[in-house]
């Protein structure tokens, strides 16, 4: 009954989405406010039914109703409750349902908070939103229905893939989808602007908070996924340049560029056409990511060819939306009016530079991700493009970008003073050089790249702080004045500083982890001692126990340093009987920002066990950086100018509203 209700709710959501796709557009053509207002109510109704469908699937999973295929294939009655819930989106059908539910959520939010939008703009935005939603409801109902029943219900389910039975699954996919799907809003705004043929600074002011929300979630989602991979897979790696990861990195890079170009548009009314294009590209890359992950094309081009329904369906959606929006863009972009002028050396110029490097870096990731697929389809040759490719392309492009980051906020709008900015960044430059020299001396030669990169990171961090010092007048003015100015500083300035500093912090972590990571791999017997990076790790013994749906073998380690006992670490290996799979549960010991990491291998016949121990210096900074960035985004989001809302639209639109 619940399954059928969920299915029915999904059909109703599709029906409402179809109404929302057409009626408001018609209303905008006829200038009929009643028809345009349909967008709001249908968006809210759609949210209601999508949420009902999602709640139905969650209920089915929680109650372990194995008469539903989706539950049978991905759940088990003994599975802990939290994983019964998260297992809902740990599979194809459920995760697509989460995708559309989040899309409906964003549509509903625009409907709720969009009261100050011009009526026709809101109608258009929600209609475009509904076009996307309709396509994906159809996709789910036709190829990936999560509510299908089995004729002869089995007694027990096949359990969720053990690697996914982790708290990471509870957080990572919803965060990532909030980011991916959140970019649909800026896409819809861009298409609506093209349809209406007008765009102004107020438009950018509406778009920016939505983009910022999506960007914050995507940043956290990527960081969370990276940390999850780091502790769950037992290899100690945190980024593998895997197509699945690249699929989330590309929208992030484009979205970051969009965030910056929307700023130029909001403040200076320039870069309009480019901002529109970026909005389209960012969401297109989100769709591409969905296609790559959901179509099965990554698992096997072959599998894609033998069971093409899903893949071809998403490919069609992809072509329809990307092709359609770019065609519309090509046709309408020239009608948008040119914006304000600016010199190449100016805040705008710096933001253009930022956009240039971000989009180019994004393009190299795009090539590296799709080239192997294209080559295989065209010639049949199989190649793998891995970390070396991205290190050689992405790295060199990010280097000049990072050098430019501290300069941006120091430059004035319209016409900047590069020399003056450089003078104000003197402290940051000196700090960077000192740190560079210290690191160089400390590592006694070695690779020149690591001290250089750390110097650059310090430059970015101190540069971000310098901006705050400059703005508040700290050290230049009496303390009281500085404090007063600190309080008066717009939150967006703090946001910029935090986000930019986060970039530098993450870079320090990345460089330290990759350069000075030390590892110890050996077979150990009880009472053996491993020595690594000044720590002594003694294997006390092995024990096994029975978990809810797995058997676990645990190794107990005592960690000490200079004879002083610090902590116990207990890495384990779990055997999941239902799927005949084992997973490695690494043990982590955090010391400052560094971590000790132990994961287990196989046991030998003589009772010894293969052990892999890593010391990862400053590794936590890799994820602290993105957290700082997201916090900066949050600060910026709470800025007064965005909180208070957009200014009233221009006269032309007021005329239209008056027609109500």
């Amino acid at each position, binding site marked *: 009954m619940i399954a059928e209700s969920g299915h029915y709710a999904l059909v109703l959501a599709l029906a409402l989405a179809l109404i929302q796709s057409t009626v408001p557009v018609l209303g905008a053509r006829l200038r009929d406010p009643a028809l345009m207002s349909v967008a709001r109510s249908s968006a809210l109704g759609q949210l209601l039914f999508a949420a009902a469908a999602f709640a139905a699937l969650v209920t089915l999973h929680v109650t372990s109703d194995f008469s539903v295929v989706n539950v049978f294939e991905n759940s088990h009655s003994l599975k802990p409750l939290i994983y019964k819930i998260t297992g809902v989106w740990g599979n194809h059908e459920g995760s697509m349902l989460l995708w559309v539910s989040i899309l409906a959520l964003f549509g509903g939010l625009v409907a709720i908070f969009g009261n100050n939008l011009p009526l026709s703009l809101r109608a258009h935005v929600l209609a475009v939103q509904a076009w996307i939603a309709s396509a994906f409801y159809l996709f789910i109902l036709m190829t990936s229905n999560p509510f299908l029943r089995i004729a002869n219900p089995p007694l027990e389910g096949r359990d969720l893939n053990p690697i996914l039975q982790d708290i990471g699954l509870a957080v990572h996919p919803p965060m990532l989808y909030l980011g991916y799907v959140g970019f649909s809003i800026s896409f819809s705004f861009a298409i609506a602007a093209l349809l209406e043929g007008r765009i102004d600074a107020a438009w950018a002011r509406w778009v920016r908070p939505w983009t910022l929300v999506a960007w914050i979630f995507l940043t956290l989602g990527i960081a969370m996924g990276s940390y999850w991979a780091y502790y769950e897979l037992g290899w100690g790696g945190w980024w*593998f*340049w*895997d197509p699945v990861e690249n699929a989330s990195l590309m929208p992030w890079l484009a979205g970051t560029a969009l965030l910056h170009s929307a700023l130029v548009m909001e403040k200076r009314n320039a870069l309009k056409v480019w901002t529109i294009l970026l909005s389209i590209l960012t969401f297109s890359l989100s769709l591409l990511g969905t296609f790559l992950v959901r179509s099965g094309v990554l698992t096997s081009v072959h599998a894609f060819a033998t*069971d093409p329904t899903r893949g071809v369906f998403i490919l069609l959606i992809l072509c329809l939306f990307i092709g359609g929006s770019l065609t519309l863009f090509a046709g309408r972009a020239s009608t948008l009016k040119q914006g304000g002028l600016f010199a190449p050396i100016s805040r705008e110029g710096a933001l253009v530079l930022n956009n240039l490097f971000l989009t180019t870096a994004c393009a*190299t990731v795009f090539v590296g991700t799709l080239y192997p697929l294209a080559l295989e389809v065209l010639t049949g040759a199989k190649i793998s493009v891995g970390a070396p490719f991205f290190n050689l392309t992405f790295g060199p492009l990010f280097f000049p970008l990072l050098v430019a980051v501290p300069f941006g906020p120091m430059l004035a709008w319209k016409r900047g003073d590069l020399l003056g900015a450089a003078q104000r960044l003197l402290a940051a430059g000196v700090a960077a050089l000192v740190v560079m020299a210290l690191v160089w001396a400390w590592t006694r030669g070695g690779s020149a790249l690591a001290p250089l990169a750390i110097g650059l990171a310090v430059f970015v961090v101190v540069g971000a702080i310098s901006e705050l010092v400059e703005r508040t007048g700290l050290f230049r003015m009496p303390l009281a004045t500085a404090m007063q100015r600190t309080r008066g500083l717009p939150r967006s300035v703090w946001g910029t500083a935090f986000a930019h500093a986060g970039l530098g912090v993450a870079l320090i972590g990345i460089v330290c982890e990759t350069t000075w990571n030390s590892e110890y791999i050996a077979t150990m017997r009880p009472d053996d001692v491993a020595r690594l990076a000044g720590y002594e790790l003694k294997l006390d013994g092995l024990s096994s126990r029975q978990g809810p749906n797995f058997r676990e073998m645990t190794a107990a380690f005592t960690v000490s340093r200079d004879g002083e006992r610090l902590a116990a670490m207990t890495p384990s290996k779990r055997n999941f009987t239902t799927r005949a799979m084992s997973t490695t549960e690494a043990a982590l010991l955090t010391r400052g920002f560094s971590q000790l990491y132990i994961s287990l*291998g*196989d046991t030998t016949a003589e009772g010894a066990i293969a052990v892999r121990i890593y010391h990862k210096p400053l590794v936590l900074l890799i994820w602290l950086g993105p957290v700082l960035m997201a916090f900066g985004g949050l600060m910026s989001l709470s800025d007064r100018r965005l909180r208070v809302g957009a200014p009233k639209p221009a006269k032309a639109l007021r005329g239209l509203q008056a027609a109500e």
Partner: protein
Amino acid sequence: MTRKQRKLTIIGGALAVLAVAVGLVLNALRDSIVFFSTPTMVAEKHVAPGTRFRLGGLVQPGSLVRGDNLAVTFEVADGGAKLPVAFTGILPDLFREGQGIVAEGALDASGTFKADTVLAKHDETYMPKDVADALKKQGYWKDNDGARPDAGAKPSAGSTETRGAVRAVQGASQ
């Protein structure tokens, strides 16, 4: 500066960055991509020692020998040919005899494949993509490969999930 000059400066800058990016990509594609081979392909093509490539196939049952200090040797077979592989380190959780694997490394002078990375499939329905394709081509491996109790449902769904949600389980060893 006139409007035109400003525009030209920006376009010129954009083209310069793009040119650099294209150069970087072409350079990286020449140097850092790795081809995939099966033992049969290795035998046919006479791959030179020292050339890095990815070797895929099934671990020959009975060939796994564990030496001291985590050294292991085993043979990778694809029905047509076999190739001895040497590796030092911890094998992936799901490394088993008869299992599909992908190893990355190069041949040494004696014709042994020295692997520095071994990747195994990470759930019982998942065969590494390259291996599955290559073996299917040779008719050596079929979709319903014993391990699955009921392969009828949806052969590719489970594996896609693993890849999608856990990201790069397979690439994890790099």
